[in-house]
Structure formats: C-alpha cells, structure tokens
C-alpha cells in the first residue's frame, strides 16, 4: 500500500511545515508506479514471446550502430588487465561495441549496489552475480531470460555471423555442472551464464606422503583413518599448532557433507510439509557437525573459521602446519610453495559411486531494465566472446578459475602454452588436468546449492555455525537453532 505510506509521509512532512520535502518522495512514488505499469506490460510481452515460441524476435543487432554496454564485476586489478586484453580483441571484431567495465567491490557489495539500484534504475547491461542474487533480481523483474539469445539462429551459441574465428561451440560444449545452474530458479528460463567458476580440490604435501607411503584419501572414512595415523607420529602430534587437514570454507565443508550424505540443506521451492526453504535443522545434520567437532578436537581438521585469525588454510598448508588443504581451485596458486611438492586430488567423498563436489564462483546476468535491444545483444555477444574456448582457457590459466567449456581443456593455451609451466603455474595446470579428466568425477559430480532469496544467508549461517561449534563457543543444538533463526528472518 504505497499510497498510505505516501500520505503518512506527507502528513508528517506538513507538520513541520516542510511540505516541500515531500515533493521528491511524492514525485518519486508516482514515477515509480508508472514504472511498474511499464514493467508489467513488458512482463506480459515477455511471457507472450515465450509462449508464442518465436524467441528470435527480440534478438536485434545492427553491426553499424554504435552501442555502449556496461559490465559490473568484482575482478581485482590483475584480472582486469586480462579482461582489458579480451575487450581489445573483441573490438577488432565488433568495433561498434564499447565496453565499459567497473569494479564494484566484493560479491556482497555488488549485490547491495544492484539491489539499491533496482529502486533507482541505475543498472549496468551485464554484471557478475551469484545465483541467489539473481533470484532476487528476477523477483523484481529486472533480469533478462537469455533463452532466445542462446537459441538464436544468427547470434546464438555456436553461431557465427562475423567470418572471424570465434571459437564458439554450442550449448553441449558448456561444462554441464556450471551451465545448468543458470536455469535452476523458481521461474522457468535461463537467467545466468557461468563465468569465473571454480570447484574445490584437495592439495597435499606430496613429499611427506611419499616418504611415509601414505595414499591420498578418496573418501572421508579414509581421510579420518589417515589423520589417526598422522597424529600417531610425534613429529606432528607434539606440535600444538599442527592439524592434519585444513578446509578453506566452513560453509562448503558442511554443504558438501550434507549433499554427499543425502541430508537436507535447503530447497529451491518451499518444502510442502514445513513450508520452508530450510531443512538443515535435523538430528542427522547435527551428527555431522558434532563428528567434525570431535575431529577438530583431535586436531584432524581445522577450518578457516576455526583458526584464530581466520587465515586461509592454504597459508597453514604452505607453512607445513597442515599436510592437506581443501580449497577453491580459483586459489590453487596459494597452495604452491618452494619448500615441498604439492599434489592435487579430489574432495573426499561419502560415496565414490556418486561423487559430489560443490561448484561456486560468480556467473554473469543481463539486465533488461534500462537497456535497449541493441545493448542486450551486444552484451550477449561480449559474453560469448569472454566464454569462448580460447578466452575461457586463457582467463582460467591466468587466474586459476576453471574454464566454463569442456573444449577449453584441450585448447592451445592449456595444452601447449602451459605444458611446460613450472612453479605455481604448473600446479594450476595439474589442477586443470585433474578437474578436466572425466575419470575424476568432476564433470558429473558438480552441484550448486539452490538459489532463492535467503540462500546466501543460509550459506553465511553454515559458516558461522561450524566455526562457532569448532571454536567451542556454542553447543551444536544452539548453533543450529541460531542458524535457523537467522535464515527465517532473512527470508
């Protein structure tokens, strides 16, 4: 009831004889309601389009008309240089498209900025996003369903009208685990495109493992057995700072374990019985956490959230206060050290026949509010360029993120240029080879947690839940109750 609110504001405003101050508000809300009617008409035309199954209609592009697009992201200065290079090459093919890119802080910050700008309309053409951010943007009818663009006969994935080599395969070339996350929303449609994707891998101290003849654990049972063996060795047990395994993300550890053990975490649509997205407050889930607490107390396990200065466990790993570290493949380089050889393996599993590993990292979404069809298509063409076989491999090899196309693993960048890489680059290559090898389960086993308003809070709460239990500041029951409370209020 915006009218009621406006009238309260006006009344209060006039009470202080400041009626003038009501003006921007009143003007604002009326402008807003007209915006809304426009949006609704836009919405109906969108849905008409999809039902009429003539998706090509919207994909208009005039290669002669100059167009400016804006891309908001969270890349650091180094990664922006790679982006600039890709933009420069892009402009030799499409000289009429000017790409402006702006760094908007971290992932939380970019989401805040966009949320605030949903009210003002000051939105970019495309932006970095997490799936749950997009869920919020869809609620406000601000993001574009990319289905017509993907399938377009001229500009769609795998189609190339320019005559240049675009290294652009079809949908089947996109890494399935990353691609399917783009359509995992409550609404039908494809709303986000994978970009800086990563998964997790286990890094281990190869020198120590070989010296003792230990095998790298593939399951959690093997992992905890190995930890017991390690801690029997006084070299390690007598060092009070030593832990066998470091895990970089408390939330990822829990989400992985819940998924691997088929335990509830969150659901994309509300559970019919509890009428809630959140299902993690069960005895079985609590058992997982209390087991982890036991392993932490035995110094089998340390996480980023349970170390005093919340250090990434890669730091502990390279300092040899951990023998194994599980972390994002986007941070592979931080596990490299000159002091010993680092080996790469997969995240331990509960069931080797059904491997599950969490995929994460930002995607790119496209805004329909405040953009012209020409801009939208230009942005789509730019995305196709960023994510093509060669560029995806190039960006991945420079940054450590995973390529988003299967073909990238065989691209010249990864096969030729990086074949002789040593040091940290060599570790990045080894990680790519491990993740890209179908035998290791990564192509099939990647999963993302469901996206809905409140899913990022759930993730944040998993972080806090595990670290406060491991630190001993809370018991398991209270930690779960607190997490559930925070999730309910964030929804």
């Amino acid at each position: 009831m915006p009218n009621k609110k406006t009238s309260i504001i006006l009344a209060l405003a006039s009470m202080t004889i400041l009626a003038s101050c009501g003006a921007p508000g009143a003007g604002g809300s009326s402008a807003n309601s007209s915006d809304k009617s426009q949006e609704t008409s836009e919405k109906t035309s969108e849905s008409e389009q999809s039902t009429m199954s003539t998706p090509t209609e919207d994909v208009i592009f005039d290669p002669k008309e100059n167009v400016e697009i804006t891309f908001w992201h969270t890349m650091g200065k180094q990664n922006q240089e790679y982006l600039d290079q890709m933009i420069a090459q892009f402009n030799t093919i499409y000289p009429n498209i000017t790409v402006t890119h702006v760094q908007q802080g971290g992932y939380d910050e970019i989401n805040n900025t966009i949320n605030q700008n949903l009210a003002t309309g000051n939105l970019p053409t495309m932006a970095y996003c997490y799936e749950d951010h997009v869920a919020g943007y869809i609620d406000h009818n601000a993001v574009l369903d990319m289905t017509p663009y993907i399938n377009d006969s001229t500009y769609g994935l795998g189609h190339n009208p320019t005559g240049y080599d675009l290294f652009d395969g079809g949908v089947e070339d996109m890494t399935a685990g990353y691609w399917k996350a783009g359509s995992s929303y409550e609404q039908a449609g494809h709303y986000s495109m994978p970009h800086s994707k990563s998964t997790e891998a286990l890094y281990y101290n190869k020198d120590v493992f070989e010296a003792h003849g230990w095998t790298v654990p593939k399951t959690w049972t093997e992992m905890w057995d190995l930890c017991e063996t390690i801690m029997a060795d006084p070299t390690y047990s007598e060092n009070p700072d030593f832990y066998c395994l470091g895990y970089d993300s408390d939330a990822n550890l829990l989400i992985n374990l819940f998924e691997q053990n088929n335990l509830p975490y969150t659901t994309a649509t509300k559970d019919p019985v509890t009428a809630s997205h959140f299902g993690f407050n069960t005895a079985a889930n609590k058992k997982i956490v209390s087991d982890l607490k036991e392993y932490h107390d035995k110094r089998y396990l340390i996480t980023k959230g349970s170390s005093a200065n919340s250090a990434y466990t890669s730091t502990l790993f390279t300092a040899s206060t951990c023998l194994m570290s599980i972390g994002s493949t986007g941070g592979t380089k931080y596990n490299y050290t000159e002091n010993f050889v680092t080996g790469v393996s997969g995240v331990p599993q509960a069931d080797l026949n059904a491997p599950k590993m969490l995929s994460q990292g930002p995607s790119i979404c496209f805004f329909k509010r405040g953009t012209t069809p020409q801009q939208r298509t230009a942005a789509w063409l730019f995305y196709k360029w960023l994510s093509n076989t060669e560029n995806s491999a190039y960006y991945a090899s420079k940054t450590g993120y995973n390529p988003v196309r299967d073909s990238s693993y065989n691209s010249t960048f990864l096969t030729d240029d990086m074949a002789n890489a040593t040091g940290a680059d060599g570790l990045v290559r080894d990680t790519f080879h491990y993740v890209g090898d179908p035998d290791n389960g990564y192509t099939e086993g990647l999963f993302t947690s469901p996206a809905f308003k409140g899913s990022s809070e759930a993730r944040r709460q998993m972080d806090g839940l595990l670290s406060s239990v491991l630190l001993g500041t809370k018991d398991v029951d209270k930690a779960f109750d607190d997490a559930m409370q925070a999730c309910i209020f964030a929804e």
Partner: protein
Amino acid sequence: MAPEKTAQEKTPFIAKAKGFVVNLFKPKERVSADAGEKNNWKAWLYLAPCIILLAVFTFYPLINTIAIAFLKNYDYIQQTSEGFTLENFGVVLGLVGYTQSGDMVMRWNCTSFRSGGVVGSFIDAGGVVRDAYFTMDVIKYAFPNTLIITFITVPISIIIALFIAIGLNSIPAFHKALQTIFFVPYVTNAIAVGMVFAVLFDYQGIINYLFGLGSLTWIDQGAPAWRAMIALCVYIVWHSLPFKILILLSGLQNIDKQYYDAAKIDSASGFKTMMNVTVPLLSPQILYIMITSFIGAFKEYTSVVGLLGKPSTDGGGTNNMYTVVYYIYDMVKGNVQYGAAAAVLLFIIILIFTGIQFKVSKKRVHY
C-alpha cells in the same frame, strides 16, 4: 494507486496538522529583541538554503524512516508495504517471532524456551507443540553492548581527559607541544586507526608480547566477547580523548585564577582544590562533553568495523559484538523495517538519557 486518491487522503491530516503547527510555533515569550518582528520573512530567507537542504536530505529520510518502522514487510525497491503495524518493534525487542513456515508467534504464548531464548515452544491451535524463532540480536547483544560501551568509555575517558587537561593547565613549559600531541588522534580516520588497533591486539601482536600474555586472543575468532569489549573500549577511549581534553582545557583557561589563589590561601591540597574548585567550575564543559559523548557512544559503529571488521568473535555464529547502530546498518541491507524500528528506539533512548542528564545537571552544574 492513482495520485488523486493520495491527495484526498492527505487533506484531513493537513487540517489537523495545521492546528498543531500553529501552536508549536507560537513564541513562548517576547524577547526584548534588537531586531523587530518584521524580520520574520527576512529570517526565513536567510534560513531558506539550510532548511531546503535539510528538508530534502535529512527530514524527508527521517520521516521516511519513522514511517517505515510502522509498516509491515516494507520493500524498498518497489516502495510497497502491507499496511500499518507494530510488529517491527516486537521483532526487534524479541517479543514477536516466527515459525519455520512464517506464522507469527508472540513470546508470551510460548511455554518453554531454549538456545538462550532464540527458540520458544508453543502449542498451536491443533494442539501440536511447535517451535518459534525469535531474534535476540538486539536484546542480548546490541543494546547491552551499546550500554556497556557507553557506561565504560564515557566516565573513563572523561576522568582521564580531566587529569590530562588539569595537568596540561598546570605545567609551565612544553604546554603547547604536549597539547598538540594529545590532539593528534582527533584528526585520524576511525576505520584506519581501528585497523591499527587490530594489529596491536592481534593474538601475535605487541600487546600480548609486552604484557607476556602468550597467544591470548582479544579480537580474533574464538575470543570471548568481554575481551573483545576491552580492546574496543581501549580504542574508543583513545580515540575520544582529544576532543574532551580540548574542551576541558578551554574551560580551564577560562577559570578565573583568583579561585585558585583563594584555595591556596586556605592551603587546600591539590586534590581538594581539584574536587572543590576545578571540577565544579568546569561543570558546564563536563556536562557538554557528557551529553555529546553519550550520544556518540550510543551511535558507536565505525570503531567496531575498524577493529573487528565484523560484529562477531565466534566465527560468525552469533553477532555478539553488535552495537545498535551496527544492527541498524546491517538491517538496512535486507530487513529495512527492523532497522527503522531499532533507529526509532535508539532515538527515544538517547532522548531519555539526555533528559536525565539535564535533570541531574540542573542541581549539580554551576553556571
């Protein structure tokens, strides 16, 4: 939705408001003024730039905030809500909670509580025992922390500032140099210096090293809230000293030297002189810094951001280092109506405290 309807609705409000406004602005007494009443329109002209800017950028958002505090499920983006409610205040105070399916439950309808009052069990209409979840962030953390900060840092910093100011006032040499040194913390960025204190209080930092405390955690993860609170209070006192010293010093310099001569003749001791002469004569300045620093301490936020980076020392499981303004700031990003309700409560509390101070000072302050 039509704008005409809005216009119709607001008329009765304005009619009512007018009477109130007329009363409010009636001068209580005719001051024998140097300028006559004809200055009326001229005065408004002089005030116009300031009033217009304040109206747009302060009063309008303020009124908006108050309005939002009373609206149900306010959505900033669409600027919609589901009508008038007091629910937001209930939620902030931990009196209104929700079940997992989103049903509203009153605290007093719950029969038992667990997890520190976060979960309450109640028997629903069908006779089934269910759980309701309450937010305790404000009641258990934000308000107590804010009160602790206020009642620790304000008296301590005033006493230290008083000693330093009296010391500075009584020395014959290096007066200016020392005064300048004591003022330096005033010209620093609160967040930047907060980060410096974070380095000092690091578990491998200089404080532990100097005092031989080993790897004691003060502000790192796993540190108990009370230790983080000590570090925070040390930082706040450090950062708030310069302003107080300066105000007290300018007050001291205004004190007539003859009072001290009189005290000397009575051969009163230094301490006695301080308690019986200096402090009473400084009471207007002390009142002023008490009021400003109470308000400042109630609004403490940047110091927590600078020192801790997040409102928690247990890895994020609880917001045990929340202050009221930190809570408000967090809520602005998601549940703006709760933030608005907390802001209204904070405003009322500040008003009450300021009022009490004036009441007390009426007897004690010597003008």
